[in-house]
């Protein structure tokens, strides 16, 4: 929801930051989110009244801010979040979208879903427990999904008397882990979600901590260079061809830029045909553009009359994606039935739909230890593993670590229409 206090300030246009939150049950995730919403004045009167009322009736000592973020009724009754829920708040600097995801191992797929669009992840750690198996799992998933920034929120510092030693020990352990996971940017913040210390404002508790409060970190983390502005990738989504006299020769290729910067005059190649042309015009509804970058939705006009349709991709002649049918990928399995070699699925990658045959399972990744288990016959729901696929037609892709848009795909079970896997493409085909 929008912050009333910052309503006017927001008008000038702030940046958007998407972040996901993960923690184990009782680490204080709901309390933390409630605290962020409450302290940034993002709560409506009626919501707060409701929460105060429920807290009072339950005999809670404090107004239970965790209640602000409870979702569907069944989940509420179980007292846990079991799906991804999205929440919104804003400050004058940024508008935030939170993907609130559950932490339990049986909900790995929800965590993956929330992480897929995030610029940043907050991983909660209970200061009393220190780094536990679940913490390692959350960090591992975050790094696999290549969320560029991880903030470890060391919560419940009040319960360990704001002891610096406790914090430093956790920090050291997680730093070592993050280095092995190849995470670009990690930070550590000691806080108390319950009392609000170091959440929105810097607290005078724990003067040994010299870093920013969590909100400050969220407002200032540098995300501009996280996108790929080098490799031009434009998956054609929709061909605009008005059936009207005054637009007789109009033929525009509409889509969302997936990488690089498109410029008028640039030489381009159309995949899969390989025809070359030049960008004659770039435009959107508001008028012509000189250039376009991710994630802009624009329309491209080519100088030549080449045949282009949905599912094709425009790129630069000297910088092309991999064109391949033999895929090597990390997948998070989400289906009810397991993944086994020889299964066939529909595969959606950018704006392209093909079919895929599972060739083999290289290994299953133990998400708690990072251990690679070879020789497994199947992947069960919530498993992560590396597989090989063969598609019916080539797709045009980049390694996921280089481009999260052209490096990702989903698998769909054609009998149920369920989305059964999230896939991240690895290196070159063999």
């Amino acid at each position: 929801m929008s912050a009333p206090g910052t309503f006017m300030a927001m008008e000038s246009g702030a940046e958007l930051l998407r972040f996901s939150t993960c923690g184990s049950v009782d680490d204080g995730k709901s309390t933390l989110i409630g605290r962020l919403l409450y302290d940034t004045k993002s709560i409506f009167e009626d919501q707060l009244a409701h929460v105060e009322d429920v807290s009072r009736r339950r005999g809670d000592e404090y107004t239970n801010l965790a209640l602000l973020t409870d979702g569907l009724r069944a989940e509420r009754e179980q007292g846990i979040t079991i799906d991804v829920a999205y929440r919104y708040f804003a400050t004058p600097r940024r508008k935030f979208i939170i993907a609130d995801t559950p932490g339990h191992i049986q909900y790995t797929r929800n965590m993956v879903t929330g992480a897929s669009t995030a610029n940043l992840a907050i991983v909660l750690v209970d200061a009393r427990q220190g780094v536990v198996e679940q913490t390692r799992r959350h960090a591992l998933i975050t790094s696999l999904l290549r969320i560029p920034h991880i903030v470890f929120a060391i919560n419940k510092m009040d319960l360990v008397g704001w002891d610096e030693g406790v914090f430093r020990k956790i920090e050291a352990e997680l730093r070592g882990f993050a280095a092995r996971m190849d995470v670009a940017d990690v930070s550590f913040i000691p806080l108390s979600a319950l009392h609000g210390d170091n959440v929105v404002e810097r607290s005078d508790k724990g003067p040994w901590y010299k870093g920013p409060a969590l909100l400050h970190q969220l407002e200032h983390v540098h995300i501009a260079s996280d996108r790929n502005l080098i490799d031009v990738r434009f998956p054609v989504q929709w061909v605009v061809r008005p059936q009207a006299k005054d637009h007789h020769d109009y033929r525009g290729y509409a889509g969302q830029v997936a990488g690089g910067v498109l410029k008028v005059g640039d030489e381009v190649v159309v995949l899969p045909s390989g025809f070359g042309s030049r960008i004659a015009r770039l435009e959107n509804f508001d008028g012509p553009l000189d250039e376009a970058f991710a994630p802009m939705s624009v329309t491209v006009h080519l100088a030549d009359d080449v045949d282009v349709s949905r599912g094709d991709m425009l790129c630069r002649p000297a910088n092309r994606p991999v064109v391949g049918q033999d895929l090597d990928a990390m997948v998070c399995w989400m289906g009810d039935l397991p993944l086994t070699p020889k299964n066939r699925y529909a595969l959606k990658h950018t704006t392209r739909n093909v079919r895929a045959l599972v060739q083999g399972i290289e290994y299953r990744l133990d998400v708690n230890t990072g251990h690679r288990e070879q020789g497994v016959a199947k992947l069960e729901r919530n498993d992560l593993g590396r597989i090989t696929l063969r598609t019916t037609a080539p797709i045009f892709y980049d390694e996921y670590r280089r481009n999260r848009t052209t490096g990702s795909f989903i698998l769909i079970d054609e009998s149920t229409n369920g989305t059964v896997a999230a896939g991240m493409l690895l290196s070159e085909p063999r």
Partner: protein
Amino acid sequence: MPHYQLDHLTALEHEAIHVLREMAAERERPCLLFSGGKDSIVLLRLAEKAFRPARFPFPVMHVDTGHNFPEVIEFRDRRVRELQERLVVASVEDSIRRGRVVDPKGPRASRNRLQTTTLLDAIEEQRFDALIGGARRDEERARAKERIFSHRDEFGQWDPKNQRPELWSLYNTRLKQGEHFRVFPISNWTELDVWQYVKRERLELPSIYYSHERSVFARDGMLYAAAECVERLPSETPFREVVRFRTVGDMTCTGAVRSRAATIEDVIAEVAASRQTERGATRADDRATEAAMEDRKKEGYF
């Protein structure tokens, strides 16, 4: 703004355009639900941004209870004419005439709930497979988990416990016979984003969103338009008041607020202020808060 960076409204706009084009490319018979309210007016602009200079690859549909504000109906017809798009009106009165639903009678009667039947009948008759709606995740808690492509079974029902995961910007748009999607391109927008966009795009809204004088009556601490289709109790005497409406639903259940907000800037300032009311404040403030609640409940109607 640093170079190669979009402000949040533009980022949300481009995401919504992507959603609309994806739906148009992958579904055969979409349609855009238009209520005449600010959210669906924003949707029309987004559709222009996604498909112009071509026509929309879908018609615009309004579910008309027969008890709508005349100003809104006038606005609807004019807007669709300006856009030169096709309007489908699904009429609750038709459903009543055909015996699909029973018209409730009496002072508290409202046709609001009958709309669902009319809508589902229209979906079946026209074989629509994707309905674009203006619902937002910030409206209420249950919606926080609703997908952008929200699946409906053959009974038109949403199963919140069995939703397809939505990853990256890869939408699974597959359906079985008889099923459909509700597609929510502005899922990630807040009410504030919508108002800012209305302002930025200089979108015209139906006149009842702005302050005007009209005949109203009080009920349950709210003000309602005194109109023929809204039956009043003997004690509910109409009086003149300067008001505006924060939503544009059925007249029988859409409350007005006392307001002098005559421009978009005034309205934005007023919406901002009403959120800041302290609990236990004056009655006038309470009323504004209640109106805010109404806002969110109704706009999520579809």
